[in-house]
């Protein structure tokens, strides 16, 4: 059999979730190398959209690539670059952040960001008949925007009121800082939606320090192992988590590899749902070895 090459382009590990992406990518790459000895896998990380475009250009111009698995920093920015790669006949798998021009991608493994916001919103709707909540956003990007919009959509028409919203940059320190200030600013907060488990870590620490009892729960997202564990343990503050597994990239690599080696010719769209992790199902989502 002739050797084939699969390139994987993902964001650099610049916060918890992307760290998870890199981890799962490397783990899957090792597994696939074992499973398919003739498959060469190149993994490249990039710190920004422009760098990612550059990295893809570099990989495709200096060697022959048969398939490209890409988790874009920003799908709009990568559209033309990927269109170019496509012209060379490369099989393209896009993960998480879909292209507007869907004809470019052969395979789309969708993480579905709006779904994350919607599922969280539904949970609020069900468990908080009325109340004041605060929202801690991520970094100003499309992903963040989609999540927040969907969340707002989901709680529309309820008596839940978002009384404050700030960026916390998907990191713990900013989560802690912003939450401390929210607590000074608002005497009564019923619940917190922070979209990301890293931010949630900071939020919880700030609430603990302030000894505030008015906050009924905090909902994060992504499925960080510590948070899943707290859900499983029945922590009152973290009743649920909304899964947005960085492992989706592994799924994409796996399907792409099967496709390349001719085992399983597939095209189309796989949409991973953003399931709600509850005390009952938390065990299924707990991977103690993951760095995330």
């Amino acid at each position, binding site marked *: 059999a002739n050797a084939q090459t699969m390139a994987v382009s993902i964001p650099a590990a610049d*916060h918890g979730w992307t760290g998870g992406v890199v981890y799962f990518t490397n783990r899957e790459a090792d597994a696939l190398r074992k499973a398919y000895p003739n498959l060469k896998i190149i993994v490249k990380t990039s710190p920004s959209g422009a760098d990612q475009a550059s990295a893809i250009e570099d990989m495709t111009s200096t060697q022959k690539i048969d398939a490209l698995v890409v988790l874009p920093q920003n799908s709009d920015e990568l559209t033309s670059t990927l269109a170019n790669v496509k012209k060379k006949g490369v099989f393209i798998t896009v993960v998480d952040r879909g292209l507007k021009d869907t004809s470019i991608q052969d395979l789309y493994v969708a993480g579905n960001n709006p779904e994350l916001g919607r599922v969280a919103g539904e949970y609020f709707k069900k468990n908080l008949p009325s109340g004041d909540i605060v929202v801690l956003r991520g970094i*100003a990007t499309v992903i963040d925007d989609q999540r927040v919009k969907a969340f707002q959509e989901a709680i529309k028409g309820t008596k839940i009121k978002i009384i404050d919203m*700030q960026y916390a940059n998907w990191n713990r320190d900013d989560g802690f*800082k912003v939450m*401390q*200030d929210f607590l*000074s*600013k608002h005497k009564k907060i019923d619940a917190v939606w922070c979209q990301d488990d890293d931010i949630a870590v900071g939020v919880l620490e700030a609430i603990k320090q302030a000894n505030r009892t008015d906050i009924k729960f905090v909902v994060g997202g992504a499925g960080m192992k510590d948070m899943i564990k707290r859900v499983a343990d029945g922590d009152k503050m973290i009743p649920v988590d909304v899964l947005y597994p960085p492992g989706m990239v592994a799924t994409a690599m796996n399907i792409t590899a099967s496709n390349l080696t001719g085992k399983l010719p597939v095209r189309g769209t796989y949409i991973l749902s953003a399931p709600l992790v509850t005390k009952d199902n938390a065990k299924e989502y707990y991977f103690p070895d993951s760095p995330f």
Partner: protein
Amino acid sequence: MMGAPATATTTVRRRWRPDLASLAPLIALLLLLVVGTLVNPNFMSVDNLLNVVTRCAFIALVAIGATFVIGAGGLDLSVGSMTAFVAGVMIMTMNAGSGEPAIGTLALPMLVAVALAAGCGLANGLITTFGRIEPFIVTLGTMGVFRALITYLGDGGTISINTQALRDFYRPVYFGNVLGVPVPVLVFVIVALIASLLMYRTPFGRHVTAIGSSEDVARYSGVSIWRVRTLTYVIQGLCVGIATIIYVPRLGSATPTTGLLWELQAITAVVIGGTALRGGSARIWGTVLGAIILEVIGNIMVLSTHISEYLIGAVQGIIIIVAMLAQRALHRRQT
């Protein structure tokens, strides 16, 4: 021995004039306190103010070190990554220990943190002085190195203190207080005291500003440039080490985003405090005020109710510029 040493001038005791430049950051801070109170009455609550000064401890500590480096005409861009790296190694050392947490359990990791940070600073210093490369380049390079090392050590993820017992035991180092003064505040005040003693009352401190104001003059006066300059980077490292020790108990973890952009904040604090970026002057207390000012601005942003979260960065930028303009204007009026 010499004719008529102008006795008139020596007997006229000069009036002691307060150093107005050093009051400027204080004025800016007071202005901000007024603004804060206007924006939200909760701003002046004890809890909020304590939160703010406690939080600014990291940047204040790092910036105190930066005052030495910048005073000597250098620059250190690596401090943020260094914090992350040191925090990671510190937590790993902690996790390697076993048994019930006791003072001893913490002593070793703390020692490791301080020693490692000092070592990182030493590396920065030696490369800069012996390689004769612009410190901008050297520390940009080591910034990349430290950041990569923490990412590598944590496999791209988070390094956390692994037992709740240890976490709870260590917690008071950030959240505790002594007679009502939060521990981090106590730490940075003590460090600032020592630093100002070092800067203003020892030959070493004199040498720092001497090489900052003219390397040639210092060299011709018998000051060992490489030794003094390297030491400023080591002091920067020590300060980072101490900052790390009080950073870790806060969230109990180190991530690839730990300390991101701290270098920029530290330099900003130093400059707001009145130390010139080109070297030759060093205002330790100005730097501390600068760090507090930065944190207060951030706090006011969150407490204000009318600013779109998209525009916060803009307002923050404008406030910094206006605060500097105001202190410059006051300063010019009085002299």
